[in-house]
């Protein structure tokens, strides 16, 4: 555990102790510290991902501090558990802003949580860099001058995966989406990418979030004989639906494609379940072979974490905090307006190759990696994906700022 983390925990323990004694919790760290709030869902089903995000974010903090900080001012990460609940996240954000007086906030894992944090932060003029996927956060009315989006948008991800899949596996497609914003935005992205390629949508089915039984839908999909089944769902929904599609024998005739394949899910579920599934990711440690920044980041992570490798979502935690600190360095100040100005148009290569923050909507323009789950020839236990293609960073692949409602 890094030094900053330990220091923070002792401060928290102190805070807890003081509240137990019903004392006013006026524990102020030195004003010179640059505080970054980091709400992530430490408890609940994405606890593993969240913990990795914290570990990665600490690397960004350590890098900044080791480089001398901002003229000697050190950065500090204030981790909070948002419990994957927007109400809790909003409360925690209020705590971070009003009580801990953070200068910046990065974090969040689910769409609704990031929109909640964004809403609270923007009302108080605090810069927020989201590391979770959403199309809406970069569009009006949710977006604000202090809103930044480090993660990919569903539109971008689905577009990249779609362009690859429709070209290589066929044009007859069945969509199965989790019925919520993430699923809907992903399918919009696939459809937008597929339209010019002339795909034929055989069916566009929805399932409720948190479905545990897809057997009611699978026979119907099977009878349609599609080339591609797109599963626009996430986490456990994705795991269960892929597993059950395999049980129904769907993989024999149909290629299963998911917009996002999570490294942690794949590790937990095992090779068998994900075998031959195609998907996208914002980061895979294996790109270090030909990406120097990835190699550097992985090495730092390995050193701090017993030689393990960072996950895709974890890496976003690093990037989210690092971009803010890059802005601080560039602005030479922690003043929000100056940092915003410094981050707009910022070009950087922190862990996955060249990226740029688009000025009009503060979206990070970045590459998408198309990956396939491996089941043989694995070099080590972390070697779970093959990178099939890279959809290079290109603002053309994003929704235009005009479509997002920006002037």
């Amino acid at each position, binding site marked *: 555990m890094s030094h900053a983390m330990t220091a923070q925990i002792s401060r928290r323990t102190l805070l807890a102790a003081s509240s137990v004694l019903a004392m006013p919790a006026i524990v102020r760290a030195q004003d010179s510290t640059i505080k970054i709030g980091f709400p992530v869902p430490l*408890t*609940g*089903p*994405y*606890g*593993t991902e969240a913990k990795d995000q914290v570990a990665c974010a600490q690397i960004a903090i350590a890098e900044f501090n080791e480089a001398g900080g901002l003229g000697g001012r050190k950065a500090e990460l204030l981790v909070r558990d948002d419990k994957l609940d927007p109400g809790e996240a909003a409360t925690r954000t209020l705590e971070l802003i009003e009580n801990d007086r953070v200068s910046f906030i990065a974090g969040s894992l689910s769409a609704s949580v990031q929109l909640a944090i964004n809403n609270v932060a923007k009302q108080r003029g605090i810069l927020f860099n989201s590391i979770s996927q959403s199309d809406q956060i970069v569009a009006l009315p949710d977006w604000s001058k202090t809103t930044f989006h480090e993660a990919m948008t569903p539109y971008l991800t689905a577009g990249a995966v779609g362009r690859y899949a429709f070209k290589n596996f066929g044009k007859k497609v069945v969509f199965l989406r989790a*019925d919520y914003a993430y699923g809907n935005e992903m399918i919009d992205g696939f459809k937008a990418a597929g339209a010019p390629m002339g795909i034929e949508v*055989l*069916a566009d*089915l*929805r*399932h*409720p979030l*948190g*479905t*545990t*039984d897809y*057997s*009611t*839908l699978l*026979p*119907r*999909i099977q*009878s*349609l004989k599609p080339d591609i089944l797109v599963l626009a769902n996430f986490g*456990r929904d994705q*795991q*269960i639906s892929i*597993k*059950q599609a395999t*049980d*129904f*024998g769907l993989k024999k005739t149909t290629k299963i494609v998911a917009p996002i394949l999570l490294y*942690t*899910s794949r590790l*937990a*579920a*095992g090779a*068998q*379940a994900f075998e031959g599934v195609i998907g996208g990711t914002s980061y895979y440690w294996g790109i270090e072979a030909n990406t120097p920044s990835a190699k550097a980041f992985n090495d730092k992570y390995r050193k701090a974490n017993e030689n393990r490798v960072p996950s895709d979502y974890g890496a976003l935690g690093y990037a989210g905090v690092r971009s803010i600190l890059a802005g601080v360095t560039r602005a030479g100040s922690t003043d929000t307006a100056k940092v915003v100005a410094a981050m707009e148009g910022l070009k950087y290569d922190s862990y996955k190759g060249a990226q740029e923050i688009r000025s009009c909507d503060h979206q990070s323009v970045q590459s998408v990696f198309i990956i396939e789950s491996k089941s043989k020839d694995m070099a080590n236990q972390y070697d779970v994906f093959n990178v099939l293609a890279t959809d290079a960073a290109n603002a053309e692949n994003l929704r235009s700022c005009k479509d997002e409602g920006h002037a």
Partner: protein
Amino acid sequence: MEGLSLDLVVLQLFTGLALGAIYVLLALGMSLLFGMLTVVNFAHGAFYMLGAYVGIMLLGVGFNFWLCLLFVPLVVGSVGLLCERFLIRRLYGRGIDYPLLLTFGLSYIMVECVRIVFGTTGLQFDTPDALVGATDIGIGYFPTYRLFVIAVTFVVLGLLWLFLERTPYGLIIRAGARDPQIVRILGIDVARVWLVVFGIGTGLAALAGLLAAPLQGASPEMGNSILAEAFVVTVVGGMGSLVGAVIAGLLVGVVVAMTSLLAPEMAQVSIFALMAVVLLIRPQGFFGRAGLMS
């Protein structure tokens, strides 16, 4: 509608039955606990989840799936016995609120313990080799494992029926489920009967969890959503009624399957809409006693 045919509808019926089979096992236990002990068991979902994880644990130490079918209910049922003996027993006669609150707390503890031991991400549970694949049931192929789930449920129902009809314990339990007063009046060692009932109820929940695990894997939260559904089934069937639990379980399974075929976005609400309609027409459920717990 795209790809809709009669065969598909019939297949969907089977799917509904497989889904319903899990509900039946859960609701049976819940109904027993409620009918006999007036315990609204909020930890029922946690026992269900525990069934899946104990299965993973036993597989890990060399048991096979078939042995798990026997031992998982025994192990989890024993946990249930301990909970009854040392915690819930102290609350009888204090109304429904206290056991409800206690089991709610208990479910928090159980879920968190599983997270500590097995992690938060959830684990894969492979379908036993003999049951992988699909079987031709005349109108199309249907996953063999799901047929197996239906079969196991009916076997368990048969065994439970034999137990309740043909053993002295069963007689007491049936009498008690109909009217808890009678058992007390008859001067039977109620404490032991209750203990057994709690063991059976939680054991059934664990079996349901184990059966569900190859379908959806195991996760610490898997009991949360199914708890609400199990409540619905129990209430629709009539709390305390075992026949009601069976019929309502299968009915709810089929209703969910059919709505997900015809209007998938309504699948989740259909279950609650069904319950609202049933209770508004027949406030005590299909087979429940009127005025129970009022």
